[in-house]
């Protein structure tokens, strides 16, 4: 199962390699990884998309949470969430008809044209995985030159009460305390 993990980690040299090293050392694969600053100075949020069943994800989160400079590790997939990725796409647009068709697709997908030359265009698209995949898929017929994707960032929806002890996200808390599995 595809899971999006959100890890709050100190913005210090080496801390990201500690997280990444933990994935490779335990044989977990990273599909995408993004890191960015947060509102709180000195702290970064690292969003990692990875594959694994519930027990694997639980292990990954606990291992991450164990690191001294990780303050929180959770799976956002477990609750309603919003996930976005951005892509920059360099695509051939050799004829006016191609350009027009690409422009139509850009409008439909609410993407943007960010650069253009006499035979190529660079497009900017963002959205969830399916949308970005589909957009790139439709552009393939014009011949893609290069695609740069950011990887995913994610945040829980306002309707999701992440503090509720009954929701699955509790396994992600730094201090899972005790559990009776019946």
């Amino acid at each position, binding site marked *: 199962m595809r899971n999006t993990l959100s890890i709050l980690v100190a913005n210090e040299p080496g801390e990201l390699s500690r997280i990444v090293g933990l994935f490779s050392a335990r044989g977990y694969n990273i599909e995408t990884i993004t890191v960015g600053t947060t509102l709180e100075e000195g702290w970064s949020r690292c969003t990692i998309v990875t594959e694994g069943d519930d027990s694997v994800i639980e*292990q990954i989160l606990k291992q991450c949470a164990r690191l001294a400079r990780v303050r929180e590790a959770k799976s956002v997939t477990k609750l309603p969430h919003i996930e976005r990725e951005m892509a920059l796409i360099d695509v051939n647009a050799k004829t006016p008809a191609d350009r027009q068709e690409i422009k139509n697709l850009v409008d439909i997908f609410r993407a943007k044209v960010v650069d253009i030359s006499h035979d190529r265009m660079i497009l900017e698209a963002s959205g969830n995985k399916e949308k970005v995949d589909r957009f790139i898929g439709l552009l393939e017929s014009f011949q893609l030159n290069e695609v740069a994707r950011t990887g995913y960032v994610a945040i829980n929806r306002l309707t999701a009460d992440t503090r509720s002890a009954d929701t699955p996200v509790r396994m992600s808390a730094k*201090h*899972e305390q005790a559990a009776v*599995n019946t």
Partner: protein
Amino acid sequence: MMSKLKTIQKKAVIRKEGGLFDFSGTEIMRDAASVTAAGEDTTGSSEDTADKPMRGAEILVRGLIRNGVDKIFGLPGGAVLHIYDELWRFRDEITHYLVRHEQGAVHAAEGYARATGKVGAALVTSGPGATNAITGIATAYMDSIPLVVITGQVPLPVIGTDAFQEVDTFGLTLPIVKHSYLVRDVRDLAAIIDEAFHIAASGKPGPVVIDVPKDITAQICEEPRTKFARVFADDVPPAADEAILDTITDRLINAERPIFYVGGGIVTSGASDDLMKVVELLQAPVTPTLMGLGGFPTAHKLSLGMLGMHGTYAANMGVSEADLLVAVGVRFDDRVTGKLATFASQAEIIHIDIDPSNIGKVKQPHISLVSDAKSALQRIATKLESREGAALNAGKAKREEWWKKLRAWLDSVPFGCKYSETEINPQQVIEELHRITQGVAIIVTDVGQHQMWAAQFYPFKRSRQWITSGGLGTMGFGLPAAMGAQLACPDKTVVAVVGDGGFQMTNQEIITAIQYKIPLKVLIMNNGYLGMVRQWQEMFYDRAYSEVDLSISPDFVKLAEAYGALGLRAKIPSELAEVLEKGLAHDGVTIMDIVVSKEENVFPIIPAGQDTRNMILK
């Protein structure tokens, strides 16, 4: 010059006695800047003391002293010259033990930490100094031993240029440390040291590496800063809720076939007495892991002895047939579980551990509790005591059948020791050692057959009496670790029980023991083989003894003499007791070369990955 030096040292002592640096490991780290400020208030102004701007090396050494280090093991080199310069100035407060190889430094620090529960400290130089230390760091990591290892590094401006003796220590040690630092600013150094000691000792302990570039140790720090607002790693977990404890208590009282499977967590948290109380109230059997040996007295009537690959028949059968497995401070290691699917397959599993990531890592428990062993067992004992005596007695009555079965298993397959007129049996050596040391010596082992025999045939009475490399299985660990343990416990007899293979990996440290008059006793179980490997080749590889023959070895008695130690040898059973008695009584380093029967095997053995019931008994 001399008088100035004296003044400095005197002042430093006064500061320590003043309690300013009375640093408690359980406390959240202190603001290093405020410590310095407080120092100004009480010691008055003196250019010579800590109030003045100091160079990094002095901050480092003072940081060690502040955190309770009075012994450090190490070997100097270019990148740590400034630090060694300061160590020389502070030699009255912190004793440095010069090892002959950095692996020995880290193992010695580990031995010190394992014998006391305090944080061990080691200091090595950059490059090869750091790489030589890695085996020790990994050993400590696997067994959750608190260490602070300081490694020198090339100056910051040349990091990444393949400078002389440069290696990426931070990167190399990343997967084998609890935490690590590359110091980038001398102002952070004091805070880093304090935090390193806190992290190493708190929660589930482990090694912390501080990589210190040479220029940092030379720079003058005008004003230290506290970069880290808070330690997040081991905040105390919230107290277990009563409901979980009640559930656990109910299960314990009502179990018909319970078994306590206890490990290093008992030793680390000092939970022996609490464990004793709980199991005595319940009259429940206990089986310790290799790391848990000593946490519960082996000879106690509720003890089944060690479980796992070379554990007792009763312990392994007990776990197989138990209806309740109470796992405390353990991690379901493969050497314990054998085939995971069939391990404790009839049991409801309660897992209590301080590390949340240990819960469900290999075996999903039915009930879990994240807590240190001591406080969990304490609270369970209180719960049990609050229950009605009638309920407790009814529970005990239910377990009478269980005890009959367990006793039958204990009686049917005791650990066996053969005796002969001509050859010394290795098990017999441990029995004799136990007799002569009256069961109270600290036993430090290497890894292999002798380790298992020591575990099986020396009934331990208390925690920290047994020191061994469990998780990583590091040959060469025994001798230097015993040196550290002996320094930590000068009044106790410390015996390094090693094989002829492992002994040759770190025997250079004998001279360290001689130099510092550490009265180490080394007992070599010499069978002329890499014995455990030979045993596996015999049992599982059609006796193809591939590269295990150590019959060409130095004369260990002459080697001992060359080092200036007492060397003794026993070749036949009639010589054994005399050699051990004489060797242990010697007031100095003794190397006892005990030539034992060559092809003795460790039994029982559960072949790797098999059901624990498939024990091979002989």
